[in-house]
């Protein structure tokens, strides 16, 4: 007998060690994520995947499923919290989507639509985060970083370079690169690194390739993040 838990009242089978998020998506139920990536261990920082399991809030991406659990995910309460978290991520950085090269391919933006985020709700922080255009092939626009550490993990664990790291603490936390000068050009970063393609938002961008796909025809312009994610992960 396979084990199962209930997600919003529907049975979801799982194998030992599988997280709530993995099992749910495999069974065709969407739970959102930003810092989670199928090729890496869970990170647990964005909290978009928050669900209520047996009455307690947990991160679905980091919590192993348990037999018989009742898990609430697609409810007004949880979706309201997710909308709030998205609003926090938007006001914390400087996200001006209309002029962002990632617009339409950006997971943060797509989730904003998915969770009907109509206003930023909170005051903007307007942090000062200068752009690094020093590298010949790639541009870093720190204004949009959501600290998922996917670039950090990809560069360290796959590319073997540790080009990126986080420094600072709390609201002053920020991304830094592996050079005394602080310039990307002075690292061994290459446009062929995994870290160059993994950012879910518009921080790490290729140079000289602006708007090759017109806005309106991009990934999330034609398909919601919900249906796209489910398609990708069922396969």
């Amino acid at each position, binding site marked *: 007998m396979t084990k199962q838990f209930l997600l919003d009242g529907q049975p979801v089978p799982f194998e030992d060690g599988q997280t709530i998020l993995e099992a749910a998506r495999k069974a065709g139920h969407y739970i959102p994520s930003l810092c989670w990536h199928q090729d890496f261990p869970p990170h*647990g*920082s*964005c*909290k978009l995947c928050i669900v209520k399991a047996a009455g307690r809030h947990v991160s679905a991406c980091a919590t192993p499923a348990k037999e018989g659990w009742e898990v609430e995910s697609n409810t007004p309460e949880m979706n309201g919290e997710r909308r709030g978290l998205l609003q926090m991520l938007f006001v914390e950085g400087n996200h001006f989507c209309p002029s962002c090269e990632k617009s339409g391919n950006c997971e943060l933006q797509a989730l904003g639509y998915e969770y009907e985020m109509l206003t930023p709700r909170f005051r903007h922080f307007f942090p000062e985060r200068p752009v690094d255009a020093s590298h010949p092939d790639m541009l870093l626009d720190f204004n949009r970083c959501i*600290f998922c550490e996917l670039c950090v993990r990809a560069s360290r664990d796959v590319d073997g370079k*540790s080009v990126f790291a986080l*420094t600072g603490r*709390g*609201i002053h936390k920020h991304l830094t690169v592996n*050079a005394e000068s602080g310039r990307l050009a002075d690292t061994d970063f290459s446009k062929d690194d995994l870290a160059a393609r993994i950012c879910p938002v518009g921080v790490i961008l290729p140079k000289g390739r602006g708007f090759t796909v017109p806005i309106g025809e991009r990934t999330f312009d034609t398909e919601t993040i919900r249906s796209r994610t489910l398609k990708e992960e069922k396969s």
Partner: protein
Amino acid sequence: MSALPATPTAALDGVLQRHGHCPTELLQILIEAQDLEGWLPAQTLTHIAQSLHIPRSRVEGVAGFYSFLYTQPVGRYRVLFSDNITDRMLGNTELMDALCRKLWIEPGKLSEDGLVSIATTSCTGLCDQGPAMLVNGRAIGQLTHRRINEIAEMIRQQRPLELWPAEYFQIGDNIRRKDSLLNLDMKPGAALAAVIELGREGWLQEVQKSNLRGRGGAGFATAVKWASARNASGEPKIIVCNADEGEPGTFKDRVLLNSYADLVFEGMTLAAWAVGASEGFLYLRGEYRYLMPQLEAVLTRRREAGLLGHHILHEPCFDFDIRIHLGAGAYVCGEETALIESLEGKRGTPRIRPPFPVTKGYLGRPTVVNNVETLAKTCLIALAGGEAFAASGTAQSAGTKLLSISGDCAEPGIYEYPFGVPIARILEDCGASDTQAVQVGGASGVCLAGYEFQRRIAYEDVPTAGAFMIFDGSRDLFDVARAFVHFFAHESCGFCTPCRVGTSLLQGFMDKLADGHGAKADLADIDWLDRLLKNASHCGLGSAAPNPVIDTLQKFRPAYERRLVSLDFEPAFDLDAALAEARQLTARDDPGAHLHTHEEEEK
């Protein structure tokens, strides 16, 4: 030190050498490297990274995390005013202003000659003898205007700290009430001899019988924790004594380490015997660095007496030793998994749990993390047995509890009570009068109002890690809550979205209210943020951060409502305040240099 000449590489290499070029020692290396020049220039970080064969980005990541590590120049005299609410109540703000004026500098800025910088820091654990400060890491309490004058003069004369009056650096214990633990006069090794006699299994059973629960906050059963680590696979096993004591208003571990260090180290060794551990760490908060020399001396003495090291008390299979690791100004490192990250020389970010430290802790090994007081208490159990220990206190809270009492009372200091003592009794004993509220358990604890003073200190009623801050009728509880909100925003590690952004947003709302721009709608947003922080945060810091606001909103609501302008929405932006810099630059403060806000017009 500030306008540095060449990096003193030889000295830096000495530091690296002493730590065996080991990356897990990175935080300790950075702390000592900083001692050389007063701060950490970019080339120093590069040199450290190269010598340890780790990416520079990792070194920069760690250096940027801890409040006491500086990647920008600071003064040769680095003055940090302790900024707990109890320091504020004793006038630290005026004292800091006075010192800044006398030395012609602005808070947070470095004087042009690089001589001095002055800033605030989170609670330094001297609330019983505040207002307090740290000068180049050394603690000074009982600040007065007279002391500030003298300090200003000595800084101006560039007198070395060693030549400052010795009484400045005297930190008293202020023990006011003793019970079983503080009355214990144990010959070092006596408890160890007793448990070796019992055998590991027998000793664990005694701890089980004692019903000892952790004194660090969560109240977890100590025997269960020890048994889990003992049964977990992986060697060598680790015992960590958590002496981070960052909770505002708590200072009992400081006193235990100052005057009862043998009990603490013996407790760690007793834990090692039960668990089968061979390595120990004392994680000492940076604020208590001044205790290092005397603690090292106790360790040396214990090694010489055969109470640490190989074959402890001639027991063939009992090897255990203890190293002291320093923190560097990060409250979150009191959280046990963040502490372990920090021990490994990393940023103090809490881990995902499970796995718990008892199965996978320091370097993936089974690790017990216990509070200083918890460990000291195990000596009592070893000497008198578990049942005797369980006989005092209440049904679910065995034994005694050390309370760190500060704020509005005649006799602040350390009080040891059996669990079950009512709040009212404590207030009477410490000479508090006209008490409006008590904050029990520190910023993350609970705020009790007068009608609750018959409640008792116990896990089943009012649990506490030890802080007990008293506020009399003259205090404004909104200011108290706001100070704690600022504390959490400053100490958030920044890992998870709700805490990183939410504590800053909450701080913004509290400041908006304080500035007289609050609206009813803000209270609704505050409520919503409180709930999100509680529910969605990754660790206990974020989920406790809204506590002071939740409690005071419920129990002292008028303190908030007083501050609302009766509108549904008020912008946080203050036009007049925005002109402050222009006024300062033009040295004007006449009415013509001010914009009138509508509140004033309404009057």
